[in-house]
């Protein structure tokens, strides 16, 4: 029971500070779930993002469900999901009930002028450490850059690239295996 409460609290905290879209949650999850609690490691963290991308719905919910399930099964995933949803539910409810002019408030606007560039830095800063954690190989760097450019500049859907990237790995690995080489994938 204490463990479930712990999961709920961790995701409540993450949900509380996920400002500016799904990716803003990544540094928070990494800090809270990977480093502090160690419920998943850095490698699983990357893999969970891949899974969260392929499932429908908000990435935050998907990530919470995965971590909760891995740590404490179905009860754990419910606790994580509830923790993740509750802060935004309560805050929006209060705004819908009482604070119609919330968005135009001068101080709110000033606060967020400061937060917005910070969120971008929080998303970009952990990239190098993550690359090291997944033991990225020489061909991984141009692949990463190519996929980043395809999404950011060509507007290709991330879901399609997730499927394409995994198929390349699958067929590449099978080809290496057929040639009798040891597949790259099993080296690390």
């Amino acid at each position: 029971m204490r463990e479930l409460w712990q999961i709920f609290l961790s995701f409540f905290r993450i949900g509380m500070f996920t400002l500016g879209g799904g990716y803003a949650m990544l540094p928070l999850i990494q800090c809270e779930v990977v480093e502090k609690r160690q419920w998943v490691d850095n490698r699983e963290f990357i893999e969970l993002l891949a899974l969260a991308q392929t499932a429908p719905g908000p990435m935050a919910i998907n990530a919470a469900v995965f971590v909760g399930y891995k740590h404490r099964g179905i009860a754990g995933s419910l606790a994580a999901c509830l923790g993740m949803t509750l802060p935004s539910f309560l805050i929006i409810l209060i705004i819908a009930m009482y604070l119609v002019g919330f968005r135009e408030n001068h101080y709110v606007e000033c606060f967020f002028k400061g937060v917005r560039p910070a969120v971008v830095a929080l998303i970009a800063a952990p990239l190098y450490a993550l690359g090291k954690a997944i033991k990225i190989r020489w061909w991984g760097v141009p692949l990463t850059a190519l996929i980043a450019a395809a999404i950011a500049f060509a507007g290709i859907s991330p879901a399609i690239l997730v499927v394409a990237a995994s198929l390349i790995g699958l067929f590449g690995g099978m080809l290496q295996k057929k040639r009798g080489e040891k597949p790259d994938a099993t080296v690390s």
Partner: protein
Amino acid sequence: MQLYLELFFSFFKIGLFGFGGGYAMLPLIQHEVVGAHHQWLNMVDFTDIVAISQITPGPVAINMATYVGYTVSGNIWGSMLATLGVTLPPLLIMLIISRFYLKFRKNQYVEMAFSTLRPGILGLIAAAAISLVNSYNFIDKTSGLIFATVFVACLYRIHPMKLIIASGLAGLIIYR
């Protein structure tokens, strides 16, 4: 009663077909709540909620469900049902995916797929950071300074929550 069921199923549909998360879900949400068959919101309200979502925590789909649920039904139950509706499909689908993943991740073919998928996901994160470098997030030189400070602080492993609060307070002082 009919209204509550409609709220639940509309948002269930959004949760079920909302691939790509976040703002990729907006057209679908718009179709359900502003579009022809419900008209729960007008376009101005819809845009307002999207804007409010940008400055409140949590997924935009959850924010939308909570807000629409409340304004349409006039009470908290509509809010809860809509939010439940949008959460349920990803919860169930992700449970199944997690189960399979934990069972098959040592499988050599799964490992092959993940060998290129892992760098690919790094690319996804990089793309998110790149597309956020725009005139909405960076309004002046101070924004660049905040970005650089937080970037360095993050490398020194200062907790993101502290950095978010600190940069917000800095915004209050600087832009006041």
